[in-house]
């Protein structure tokens, strides 16, 4: 991916921060939930490499990070970033979208729709280059389950998405699953006792 092609993702992120700042402030006292979540963990992506000439799907492993900003107790905006790597291939996703959260005791379920960019790379050594890369639109959806461990730390037991990428002149439908840890900042309303 060229640096130029990353810019739309950055612009989306900036827009998100602006809108979030405008809309979240009046709601802070009315709800009882973390204001921000930051997530980091391991992810697995099953890349549909058959669409670009591989004999089968390719298993890619890597990281998944993201952030969530609550607008109300149940609605907010999620940013999702991931990088997955395998033999001669890597895949990155830069996504943003609305998220709905449902809480009960120490458990939290969420679903979200994500939109953004996918950057897929294939390392094929050629006389004039070391590989091929393609950046294209991506959208998908999924959800997950978190379980509170400490007042500010939650275990993300699982997160699963299904991405639809447009790269290399074709389309790929790729499932991704992640696990990891979530850290909370701030609160909407009163802090909940654990």
């Amino acid at each position: 991916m060229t640096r130029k092609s990353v810019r739309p993702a950055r612009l989306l992120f900036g827009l998100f921060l602006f809108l979030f700042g405008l809309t979240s402030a009046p709601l802070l006292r009315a709800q009882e939930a973390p204001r921000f979540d930051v997530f980091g963990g391991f992810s697995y992506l099953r890349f549909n490499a058959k669409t670009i000439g591989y004999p089968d799907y390719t298993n890619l492993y890597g990281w998944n990070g993201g952030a969530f900003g609550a607008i109300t107790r149940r609605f907010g905006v999620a940013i999702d970033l991931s990088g997955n790597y395998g033999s001669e291939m890597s895949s990155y996703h830069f996504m943003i979208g609305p998220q709905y959260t449902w809480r009960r005791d120490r458990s939290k379920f969420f679903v979200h729709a994500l939109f953004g960019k996918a950057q897929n790379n294939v390392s094929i050594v050629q006389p004039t280059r070391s590989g091929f890369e393609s950046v294209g639109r991506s959208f998908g959806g999924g959800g997950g389950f978190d379980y509170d461990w400490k007042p500010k730390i939650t275990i993300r037991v699982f997160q699963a998405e299904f991405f639809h990428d447009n790269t290399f002149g074709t389309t790929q439908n790729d499932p991704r699953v992640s696990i990891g840890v979530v850290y909370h900042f701030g609160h909407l309303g009163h802090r909940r006792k654990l």
Partner: protein
Amino acid sequence: MLRKAIAVVIPLMLGVLTGCAPGTHTAYVTLPTENGVSAYRINNRSGALTTIVGSPYLTGNSPGPMVIDPAGKYAYIANRIDNTISLFRIDSLIGSLSEVMPRTATGLDPVAMVMNAAGNLLFVANEVSSSISVYSINSGTGALTLVAGTPVSLPPNPVALAVTPSGNFLYVVNSNLGLVFAYSVASSGALQPVAGSPFASGTGAFALAIDPGGKFVYVANSSVNTVSILSIASNGVLTQVSGSPFATGTGPVSVAVSTTGLYLYIANESSNNISEYSIDATTGFATEITGSPLSAGTAPSLLVTDPDGTFIYVVSQTSKTITPYTITSSTGTTATSGAGALSSTVQSVTISSPAGGMAVSK
């Protein structure tokens, strides 16, 4: 709650992670006007082609014929204007090509290439310099070394060649003379003319194929719209079989025998169709199958069989397509009624310019 969730999620993730890649073939088509070679993954079930990422890959000037070694590690492409052969390493996972320099010099206009079944000798027909070059192949690196005593001179216009499955005999078609030149091949690659060579074929002899049993040579005579059938004696001598030559469509330019040896297919470039025949295993004589000829785009000029004998790929030059055809299966070792007919159930692949050659990996 947490334990229950983990108990559900971990098996799910492990289930997703499983899955293995079935063995599939790759196909390559050279594009002379683009100095490139397109690569495709073949779907084992349907024969459909999927473009491999990064394709087309750069070649030399005006790439034409192409062959792949039996191990599927290396590909060789003759560059007809450069008068060289490019060696490509085939990526074992993706099937992409990466050229290994330097290129190997050939005679003028290397128009046809063939490799023996052992994968240790490469034969090249040089059309303008009217010669046959033989190269030994380094099994480790794929590098070519010209065999001493070659190139061997021929009368002008050798256009096609084929080697028997045993590797003992090489047959070269001369278009101008309508003759087939026969050579015995030493283990070193040295060529020795077979007694009585050359053998008559037909005017405008343009392409040839040998059956997997090494018993018959089929030669397409493009100017007179026939195919000659010549039986191969144990000493390499060729003899026309009874009933040979037989009529084909207009402009037969490519011949392919199925991997079972039971069926013969001929691309008729001017009548835009494929003639289909069953082969008598004893006499070698070909009998047209019901439904033949089969329409095949505009100007079909290249026929290539896949190693499993399931599909035939037809390159049509004017419509610039590669169309996979499924060979109706046959049981036993003899041609059966209704079997051998071609049918196409998947979409053709469009190529950006006319093809110079095609090869399918084993």
